[in-house]
């Protein structure tokens, strides 16, 4: 399994244009913010002190969630490519077993998701540190790193469901473009969730990535929010709801509730993707033993 993980990582990172395009969704979000959205949003939050830093951190949260989604999807594409090129058939003839093969695709996607989130985090934080003097404390950074793992695992599991129905590389690239474009909207990064119509808000809440984005924002922004809204807790709730820092399920979700939701989605997704493979493999084993 380690050999296959190594293979998938090598294949991902040796394809430079592939790496770049898998970051496209995240880069668009970042650049869009720098060029267009930042000024626009700042003018509407002019009354909030240190609004720039707050918004910078807000953007980092959403963009990291997008990064996890798009990079894990690109990595998982290898699964479809291998199926189409009969690599899967070749591997079936080895002692690896389909369950272990599938797990190696999933794990390599998760590892790539973490690495690319770290890369995006460094790029964005570096830029904001230079331009807006944004800083992150060491405990915050550690927590962010932990959340990156959670985010990569969740995105991998959810994308694995999407990719199950894809049989050809052509359809795969179509799916890639759709996910890449939609991710920014669906995790509420291009436009804050509070500014969207009700139906779109529901769509965002149906997107697993938006919960990850919310958690990132909580981790990165809480200190600032504590200071800014010290005397106006009502305004804080309003801000958190508008910006998708906490999602609203008949009341704003707490951090632990958000983690619970993520955990449930993750378990469900894993059951849906790994379950069938596991059943198939145990059937095969059973048949072999009967012979």
């Amino acid at each position, binding site marked *: 399994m*380690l*050999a*296959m993980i*190594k*293979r998938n990582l*090598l*294949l991902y990172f*040796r*394809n430079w244009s592939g790496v770049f395009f898998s970051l496209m969704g995240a880069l668009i979000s970042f650049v869009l913010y720098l060029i267009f959205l930042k000024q626009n949003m700042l003018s509407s939050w002019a009354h909030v002190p240190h609004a720039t830093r707050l918004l910078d951190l807000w953007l980092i949260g959403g963009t990291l969630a997008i990064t996890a989604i798009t990079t894990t999807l690109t990595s998982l594409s290898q699964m479809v490519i291998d199926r189409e*090129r*009969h*690599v899967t*058939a*070749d*591997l*079936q*003839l*080895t*002692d*690896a077993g389909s369950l272990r093969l599938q797990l190696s695709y999933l794990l390599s996607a998760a590892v790539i998701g973490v690495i690319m989130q770290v890369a995006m985090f460094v790029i964005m934080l570096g830029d904001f540190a230079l331009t807006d003097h944004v800083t992150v404390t060491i405990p915050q950074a550690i927590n962010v790193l932990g959340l990156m793992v959670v985010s990569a695992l969740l995105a991998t599991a959810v994308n694995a469901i999407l990719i199950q129905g894809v049989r050809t590389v052509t359809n795969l690239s179509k799916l890639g473009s759709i996910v890449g474009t939609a991710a920014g909207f669906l995790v509420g990064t291009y436009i804050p969730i509070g500014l969207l119509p009700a139906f779109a808000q529901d769509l965002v809440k149906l997107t697993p990535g938006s919960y990850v984005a919310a958690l990132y924002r909580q981790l990165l922004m809480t200190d600032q929010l504590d200071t800014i809204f010290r005397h106006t807790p009502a305004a804080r709730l309003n801000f958190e709801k508008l910006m998708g820092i906490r999602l609203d399920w008949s009341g704003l979700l707490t951090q632990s509730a958000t983690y619970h939701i993520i955990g449930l989605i993750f378990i469900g997704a894993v059951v849906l993707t790994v379950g069938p493979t596991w059943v198939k493999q145990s059937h095969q084993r059973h048949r072999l033993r009967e012979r």
Partner: protein
Amino acid sequence: MLLEAKHLTKTFGGHVAVNGLNLQIARGSFTALLGPNGAGKSTTMNLLIGLTTPSLGQVSYANQAKRGVVFQNSVLDERLTVTENLQIRAQQYRHVARSKVAAVSAELGLTAFVHQRYGTLSGGQKRRVDIARALLNDPDILFLDEPTTGLDIQTRTAIWDLLRHLQRARQLTVVLTTHYLDEADAADSVYIIDHGSLVAAGTATAIKAQYAEDVLQVTSSDVDRLRERLTVMPTACNGDQLIFKLPSPQVALDILTTNRDLITTFEFRPGTMDDAFLALTGREMR
């Protein structure tokens, strides 16, 4: 028998791809599967390998024979080097030693380019790496699906020499499909498949003797007189040329010796696998 297939049948929906095929492959033998496009060769291979389950019939191997497969299109990664590719595949097996990759690379003459990326290799080099990959688990039987398609004649010859060498040196059983019918001459046994059924089986020589007619072409100074004398009728007449399709070289000799005064030049060509193949599968394009 190392491998035996009985009444092998595979249907896809209403389409019968393989229809009641019986095959026997002896240990250490060299078997060629021939057939026009869409005849069911690849499906037959997949059934024999075990990648496809038959709708009817069965494939049985002698005591857990290990299989090696060279797929029609390469299954190795272009962006990885030869060694990386082989090492990763070797690690998918439980009982393949780490030193195996180096050993196989040396045996197949890959040493000069093991650190090159697979994607940058020539067609012949790639094919050799593909074969090396299939040999990693020391298979008893090696399946190759059109291993020489798209290669130049030098490379084809080299691949065939390599396969014959492996067959002898390792006591390897080889089963392959090919479009180059002349290649089947070198096989111990040939199976010709059409429309999913077996149409001929045996050694290349036997199949040619049975299905391919010898061709004699003579040029005469006086075609009309020659025709009067003939006991065997020509199949075609083209100006001063007569063409005969004959069951054996002996008949050709008879024609030539009894009419030598009327014949200016002649050409004799023994029946080829191509002739046998066309006789068996028809001229219609698939």
